[in-house]
C-alpha cells in the first residue's frame, strides 16, 4: 500500500540576516496508514520546521520549501492552492503544539474553539457542532464536559488545555496528527496522562501520529519508528526498539545515553549517564558539505570533515547517515 505521507528530498530554506540557510536539507521520510513515528533531536534541528512544512504553515516571508515534495495520500502539498491547504488543515492533517498555555485563544470559550473547526470542515450547524464538541471533550476525558464548554482557557489547567487542543485536533478525525512536543510544558504525571490519552485515541481512530520530541521515553512509549534529526538532516531512522538497542549513529547513541531509564533497569548495574558535548551548530553553518555532527562526534575522522555522509541502508529499513555506520 502506498504510504499516507511521503516526503522526498525536502529542502526548506529560512531567510536569516546572514543569508539563506537550509534549515531542512534533503529529507526523505514515509508515514504509513495508522503508523506512529517520532522525530527526535535537540532544539533547532528542524523537527518543527518539517511539521510546519507539512501543514503548509511555514512562517510567511521567512521560510519556504525550496525543493522536494510532500505527498499526502498521493496529493502534492507543496504546490497545492492555499484553499486546498485550508481544507486539509485541521481536517485531514491536524497539529497540536508545545505550549498549551498560549495556544488557545484567551477571548473565546473552549467550546467555541472546538465547535469552530467542526463548522469549518464538516459544515455543521451551530447547534450540532456544539453538541459534538461536548462529545469530544468527553472523549479527551475532561470531567463535566457540558459545563466546561463555557469555560475560558484561563480557567483551565495546562493539562486540561492540552486535552482541549487534542479535542480540536481530532475533531474531524484526521488521518495524520502531528504532535509537536505535546508534553514539554506539562508536569510529569500529566505527561503520562496525555500520552495515555493519545495512545487510546489512536487505537480508537486509527490516526497516524507524528510525534516531535526530545524525550526518548516518550518515543519508546508512543512510536514504532523513529527518525533522528540533526542540524536539518536525517541522522538515523529505524524501528524504535532496534535503534534504542543498537544505535547506528553516534548522535543517536549520545541521545540515548542521556536517558537513564531506557538504558538499564533499576536493579541492574547502571551505565554512567553521559552527555553529548557541544551544541547544535548555528543556522549559518547548515548546508555545508561535511558531517555537521563532526564537531561534537567522539568518532570523528578526516573523512567526516570533508564530505557529507550518504545514507547507508541496513536491514529492517534502517538508515544511518554516518561514515562509520558499519562499525557501530
Amino acid at each position, binding site marked *: 500500500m502506498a504510504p499516507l505521507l511521503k516526503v522526498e528530498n525536502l529542502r526548506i530554506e529560512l531567510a536569516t540576516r546572514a543569508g539563506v540557510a537550509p534549515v531542512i536539507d534533503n529529507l526523505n521520510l514515509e508515514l504509513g496508514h495508522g503508523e506512529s513515528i517520532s522525530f527526535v533531536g535537540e532544539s533547532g534541528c528542524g523537527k518543527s520546521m518539517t511539521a510546519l512544512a507539512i*501543514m503548509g*504553515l511555514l512562517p510567511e516571508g521567512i521560510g519556504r520549501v525550496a525543493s522536494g515534495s510532500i505527498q499526502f495520500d498521493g496529493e502534492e502539498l507543496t504546490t497545492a492552492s492555499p484553499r486546498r*491547504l*485550508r*481544507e*486539509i*488543515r*485541521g*481536517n485531514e492533517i*491536524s*497539529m497540536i*503544539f508545545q*505550549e498549551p498555555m*498560549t*495556544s*488557545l*485563544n*484567551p*477571548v*473565546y470559550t473552549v467550546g467555541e474553539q472546538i465547535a*469552530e*473547526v467542526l463548522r*469549518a*470542515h464538516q459544515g455543521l450547524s451551530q447547534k450540532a457542532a456544539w453538541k459534538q464538541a461536548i462529545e469530544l471533550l468527553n472523549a479527551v476525558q475532561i470531567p463535566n464536559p457540558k459545563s466546561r464548554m463555557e469555560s475560558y482557557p484561563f480557567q483551565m489547567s495546562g493539562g486540561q488545555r492540552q486535552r482541549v*487542543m487534542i479535542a*480540536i485536533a481530532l475533531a474531524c478525525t484526521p488521518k495524520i496528527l502531528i504532535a509537536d512536543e505535546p508534553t514539554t510544558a506539562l508536569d510529569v504525571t500529566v505527561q503520562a496522562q496525555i500520552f495515555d490519552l493519545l495512545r487510546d485515541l489512536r487505537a480508537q481512530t486509527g490516526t497516524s501520529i507524528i510525534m516531535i520530541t526530545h524525550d526518548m521515553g516518550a518515543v519508546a512509549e508512543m512510536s514504532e519508528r523513529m527518525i533522528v534529526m540533526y542540524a536539518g538532516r536525517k541522522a538515523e531512522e529505524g524501528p524504535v526498539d532496534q535503534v534504542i538497542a543498537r544505535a547506528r549513529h553516534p548522535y543517536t547513541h549520545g541521545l540515548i545515553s542521556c536517558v537513564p531509564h531506557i538504558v538499564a533497569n533499576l536493579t541492574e548495574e547502571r551505565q554512567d549517564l553521559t552527555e553529548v558535548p557541544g551544541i547544535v551548530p548555528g543556522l549559518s553553518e547548515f548546508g555545508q558539505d561535511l558531517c555537521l555532527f563532526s564537531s561534537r562526534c567522539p568518532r570523528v575522522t578526516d573523512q567526516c570533515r570533508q564530505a557529507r555522509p550518504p545514507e547507508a541502508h541496513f536491514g529492517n529499513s534502517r538508515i544511518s547517515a554516518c561514515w562509520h555506520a558499519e562499525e557501530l
Partner: protein
Amino acid sequence: MNALHVTTTRIFYAILLLLAVLVLNFTMMHLAPGDVADTIAQSMGGADEETMAQIRADYGLDKSFLVQLGSYLGRVLRFDLGYSFYYNQPVTSLILQRLPATLLLVFTAQIFAMFIGVVLGVISARRPNGILSHFVTFIALFGYSAPVFWTGILLLIGFSLKIQWFPVAGMRDVTLEGGFAVRALDIMRHMVLPTITLSSIFLALYSRLSRASMMETLGSDYVRTAKAKGLTEREVVYKHALKNALSPVITLAGLQFSAVISGAVLVETVFAWPGLGTLAFQSILARDTPTILGILFFSSSLL
C-alpha cells in the same frame, strides 16, 4: 461595606480636587491683566475712569480678591455658575446650550479615529513591509506632528474654498428649510472637516498602536492554532487576532478622551463650530470671567 467606603473616599477626593481647581482657576483669572470692564469700555468706544469704576462696582469687581472668591465658591456650591457679563445669560444655560455640539463633535471624532485607525493598523500589520504600510506610517507621522489648527485651515482652503465640497464654518445652514432628515444631513456636511481635523492626531495614535498590537497578536500561538485549524484568513485575522489586539487600543482611547476634548477647543475655533471650545475662546477674548470659570469647572468635573 468596603466598596462603599472606597466610593465615598473617591467622591470626597473628587470634590476636594474640584474645589482646588476652582480656587486655582479663579486666582489665575484674577491675576491675568484686564477684566470685563475693559471690554465694555472698549465696545462703548472708550470710557473715563469714573465710568470704569462704576462698571466695576456694578459687577462686584471692586471688592477684595478673597471676598470675590468666597462669594463665587458659595454660589458654585449651590450649583450656580454665575451670570455671563458678555452674553447676558446664566453661565449654566450657556454651557448646556453649547454642550451638545461639542459632544457630538468629540464622540464622532473619537469613533472615526478609532475605526479608521484600527482599519489602517490592521491593513499595515498584515503586510508590514508593503507600500500601503509605509503609506499608513507616513500619514500617521504627518497627522501626529501637524498642529490641529494648521491641518484644519489647510483642509478649509482645500475642500471649502478651492473645491467647494464642504461649508466653511458653523454647524448648520440657517437658510435651509426642511424636515429632520434634511437638517441632519446638513449637520453631517458641516461636520466632515472638523471631524477629520480633530481625528487626525488620534487617528495616528490608534493606527500605530493597533498596527503594533496586531503584529504581535498575528505572531502569537493561538493565531497559529487558528491557522492550523484550517480557518480562512479572514476568520484568522478578524475573529482570532483582532479581538485580542483591540484591548490596548481601547485602553488608550479611554485615556485619550480628555485630550480629544481639549483638542476640540482648537478645532471648534478654526471651524466656528458652536460648541464649548468656541465659547471658551470668545469668553477669554471678552474677559468674561464667569463663563471661563464655568467652562473650566464644567470640563474638570467631566473628567
